[in-house]
């Protein structure tokens, strides 16, 4: 059992190495995320109060859109090099593949959010820093849920012809509790949580994260079977 984290870490390290050697994906992703934030401003107008009020929702939609593009690349290297045959050549429990890829997506999304949160704070005129602690918790839970589901569906759709279309089709409905929970908690904390609703959203997020993580991890070997 102690083999599992070690193998997962090996896969994570492999992906980090191959990503840092090229860096093309991450740079493009950041630019895309910035453009999404701009698009919202263009669509809504320069009403600063309105933008500040919507900031939580806009930020999470930007994370989901950009993150979905990134998730689609989770298994792309292996697929280009020979598909699931190659993945199954990794020794040991195939769940290590899921855990390693999940960790990789968490790293990428965290890096994205480190840039995106300050960018949204500046562009939309909200003070995330005042609530940094609680918001960090929201971001962690939201990002984990997003990665859990995204990594799983990414493995499921990687062989399909229209995977760019099918990943969001499967992913977005499954993300509804994550998006509602993250946006609800973010907005509640930004407003100082006057109605005490943030706790409920955090509990929803945490429960959904745990349930989906257990189910996805349990069923993942079936996805990779041949």
């Amino acid at each position, binding site marked *: 059992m102690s083999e599992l984290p070690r193998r997962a870490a090996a896969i994570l390290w492999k992906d980090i190495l191959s990503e840092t050697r090229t860096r093309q994906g991450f740079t493009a992703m950041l630019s895309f995320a910035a453009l999404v934030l701009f698009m919202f401003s263009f669509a809504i107008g320069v009403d600063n109060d309105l933008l500040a009020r919507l900031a939580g929702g806009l930020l999470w939609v930007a994370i989901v859109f950009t993150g979905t593009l990134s998730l689609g690349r989770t298994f792309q290297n292996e697929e280009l090099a020979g598909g699931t045959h190659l993945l199954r050549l990794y020794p040991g429990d195939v769940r290590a593949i899921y855990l390693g890829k999940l960790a990789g997506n968490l790293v990428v999304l965290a890096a994205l959010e480190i840039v995106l949160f300050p960018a949204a704070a500046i562009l939309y005129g909200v003070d995330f820093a005042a609530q940094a602690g609680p918001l960090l918790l929201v971001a962690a839970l939201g990002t984990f849920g997003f990665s859990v589901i995204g990594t799983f569906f990414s493995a499921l*759709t990687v062989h399909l012809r*229209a995977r760019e279309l*099918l990943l969001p089709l*499967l992913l977005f*409905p*499954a993300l509804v509790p994550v998006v509602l929970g993250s946006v609800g908690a973010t907005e509640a904390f930004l407003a100082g949580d006057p109605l005490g609703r943030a706790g409920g959203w955090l509990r*929803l997020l945490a429960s*959904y994260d745990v349930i989906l993580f257990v189910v996805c991890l349990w069923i993942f070997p079936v996805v990779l079977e041949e």
Partner: protein
Amino acid sequence: MNKLAMLGWIAIALIAVGTVLGLAVLPADALQGEVQRLLYVHVPVAWVMMLAFFVVFLMSILYLVQRRLKWDLLAVSAAELGVLAAVLTLILGTLWGRPTWGIWWAWDPRVTTTALLVPIYTGYLVVRSMTEDPDRRARWAAVIGLIAFVQVPIVYLSVFWWRSLHQPPSSPQSMWSAYGLVMLLGFVAYTLAFAYLWLRRYRLAATELELELSGPEEG
């Protein structure tokens, strides 16, 4: 007449009786007026939708345990009917909602969750249609059928917290007894119709698979 055809005729007869009773025999609802009659179809069809997706879940589990393609074919047959029932539920619901709530679309938990079921199970069907190998197709479909069933109750709960407007389900006490009986008749009739269509669709799917497996495909 074989048993399956018999089931179909019984379903049609019961739906006909229920329609006549609901449209012509029962008086209009005192509060909601004539539009309330839509509920004699809307509620049973919504029930069929839930039943169909539950069947998809059960058949997916059975497939994953036993790995027999039969369960996969039964699952996809139910999934198609479920999507059809979900779309019908939404159409009938919006027609009822406009005069009753004053708006076509309300961001109510049940409405929103039903609307989300359409893309979820459309995804299920599209993934299938894009996978050539029958065993892989069945495996991935079963995984989606299983995950969908885990996520939907939580999607419902999360939308419920987000907003709530839908009238609570009518209990027998809150409905005049004749209304309740016609509603019950609708449940039985549409469930039988589902069973009939499901088994017919399954036979078709089984024949299709047989063709698919019997020899090389013609260009």
